[in-house]
């Protein structure tokens, strides 16, 4: 059976199974979303936004849409994929199902809990009605597919004036109990007025069985709110990820999303920022270090809708072996959005003979008093720098690694969780296959 047909029959079964309050809009939202998915189908390379990323190979697997059995995991098995020394709220999901055993939630002064509860319980109804699917609706057929099956994920609501004292860690494990599994986490984050929160998100497969994760996250940042999101993408070669993250910002808010892509088979990031109020600041940082046949496609959108805002976008990539990358950075400055400062840069180093990257800035500017800059570079490592370093006793391999470290340095300097920074450092060192007495 084709995946699309399988999804249609699964959808009927799913909707009959979930028992929700009939006054809730969620049922209608799901049904409408599935209709939208069905009419558009999966994107193909004919679609302009998917020109360089083909889902064909990923979609031909016979994914189970729901896991048959719910496996458990011991902390020791997954420890290395978590922040351990840093005190965190933890939302851990195993094959798409919440693990209360591994998690630490709260309702004390803020909500760090699960989407399934928020979608079902009447006390969240107002919030769900006001926010759920407000950003993701009809943005792309994959986010619609996620909406149709939305059931589980992180639900985070930070009230006004609350500085969340510790990071929130959201981790999705897939165990491989199912031969091939499709997971569709759905996260909702509401950062209240003048509130501040840090979120770390990972997707991690634990076996060689194929997994496809189609994740959607909606983030609402209220006036003067601050949110830092770190996306760690360092999965196995059997795991593919489509991540769609939508951020809506009210005035004077600051939102940062850092995307660290080091692994996985195919990774597609759709990251969209909507600046609704004045004096917003958005940061989009990305670093991809890829080898073998890995493919990462970063599609970003920053929509400036109000005046006096800033956006800073910096994506870097290092491509070895046959790895391929895509960067597509769209910036739209609406007519009302005067005095905007929009910065975008995409720098790439090609190491492997067969590696490649496609980079495309797309600027659509309808306001006249704006400062927009963009640039991209694709290059090899600087030979004269390598000779200089070798002359100082640093072997060529280490010299290359050092230059690549230095190149990636920028992307790590804004990581505000020391343990995460140390983990990233270690992954980068491992990725570059080097032991060197050097730290960032």
């Amino acid at each position, binding site marked *: 059976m084709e995946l699309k047909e399988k999804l249609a029959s699964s959808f009927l079964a799913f909707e009959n199974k979930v028992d929700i309050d009939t006054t809730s809009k969620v049922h209608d939202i799901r049904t409408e979303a599935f209709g939208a998915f069905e009419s558009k189908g999966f994107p193909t390379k004919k679609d302009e936004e998917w020109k360089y990323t083909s889902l064909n190979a990923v979609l031909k697997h016979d994914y189970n849409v729901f896991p048959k059995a719910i496996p458990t995991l011991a902390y020791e098995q997954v420890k290395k994929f978590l922040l351990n020394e840093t005190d965190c709220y933890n939302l851990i999901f195993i094959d798409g199902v919440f693990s209360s055993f591994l998690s630490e939630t709260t309702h004390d002064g803020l909500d760090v809990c699960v989407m399934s509860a928020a979608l079902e319980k009447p006390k969240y109804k107002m919030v769900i009605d006001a926010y759920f699917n407000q950003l993701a609706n009809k943005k792309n057929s994959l986010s619609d597919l996620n909406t149709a099956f939305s059931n589980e994920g992180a639900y985070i609501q930070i009230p006004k004036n609350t500085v969340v004292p510790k990071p929130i860690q959201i981790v999705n494990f897939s165990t491989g109990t199912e031969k091939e599994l499709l997971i569709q986490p759905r996260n909702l984050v509401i950062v209240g007025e003048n509130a501040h929160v840090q979120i770390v998100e990972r997707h991690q497969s634990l076996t060689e069985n194929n997994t496809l994760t189609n994740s959607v996250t909606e983030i609402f940042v209220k006036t003067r709110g601050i949110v830092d999101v770190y996306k760690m993408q360092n999965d196995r070669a059997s795991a593919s990820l489509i991540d769609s993250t939508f951020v809506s910002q009210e005035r004077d808010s600051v939102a940062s999303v850092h995307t660290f892509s080091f692994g996985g088979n195919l990774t597609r990031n759709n990251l969209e920022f909507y600046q609704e109020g004045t004096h917003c600041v958005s940061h989009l940082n990305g670093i991809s270090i890829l080898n073998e046949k890995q493919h990462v496609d970063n599609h970003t959108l920053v929509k400036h809708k109000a005046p006096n805002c800033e956006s800073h976008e910096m994506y870097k990539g290092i491509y070895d072996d046959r790895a391929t990358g895509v960067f597509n950075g769209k910036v739209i400055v609406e007519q009302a959005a005067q005095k905007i400062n929009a910065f975008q840069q995409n720098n790439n180093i090609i190491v492997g003979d067969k590696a490649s990257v496609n980079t495309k800035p797309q600027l659509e500017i309808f306001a006249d008093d704006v400062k927009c800059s963009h640039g991209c570079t694709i290059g090899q490592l*600087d*030979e*004269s*720098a390598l*000779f*200089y*370093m*070798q*002359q*100082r*006793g*640093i*072997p*060529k391999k*280490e*010299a290359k690694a*050092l*230059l690549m*470290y*230095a*190149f990636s*340095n*920028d992307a790590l300097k804004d990581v505000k969780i020391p343990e995460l920074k140390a983990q990233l450092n270690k992954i980068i060192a491992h990725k570059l296959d080097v032991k*060197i*007495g*050097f*730290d960032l």
Partner: protein
Amino acid sequence: MLKIENLHARIEDKEILKGLNIQVNAGEVHAIMGPNGAGKSTLASVIAGKEEYEVTEGNIALNEKDISELAPEERAHEGVFLSFQYPVEIPGVTVTNFIKSSINETRKAKGLEEMPAKDLLKMIREKSELLEIDRKFLSRSLNEGFSGGEKKRNEIFQMAMMEPKLAILDETDSGLDIDALRIVANGVNKLKSNDNAVIVITHYQRLLEYIVPDFVHVLYDGKIVKSGSKELALELEEKGYDWIKEELKA
């Protein structure tokens, strides 16, 4: 220490060194002078092992060992240090981290443990004081945005840290102000011993007043065409190179 015989080297199709001979013994200071484009920096790069240059004839021996097949880092591990005419900017790597990598990679090549951080910091402090380098420089990206003089001073600082056997200073004096020249020369002199040797490439007699050479050579058109004592440098400063070219024609 260094013995070069009949060295021919080219880049792409252009022959630049055309049968060059020089011998430098431990404890000596040699100055190499010569007009622009004569091949001085090329000689330095070839000794240091830059791969773009192809050695077509002749040999280079360091302490009686042929080094012409060694990679640049292996030559560095053998004690060759080149202070670059144009030091390269390494964005994102601080001076301290760079030196730490240099020293520890060199130690690793010799089968030694990494230098303990405490000792390294102490050495960095001593040598940066010797060269009057502001501590703030040490946490900046290597050479990035450094002025011409700052880059040169930093090269000698690295040399002081590496304690090479053979140091080649390629126009280290150009770009230095008068005070910096004295400080840098003083640094080089402090490092001099009977076990090491220095080759100073320069256009100016001034540096040689501070770093006094035992021999002065004129490199012209890819060859050493004249050698003499330190007085030769004075003569060149006064008369230029035309008289040597005339001598060669005769």
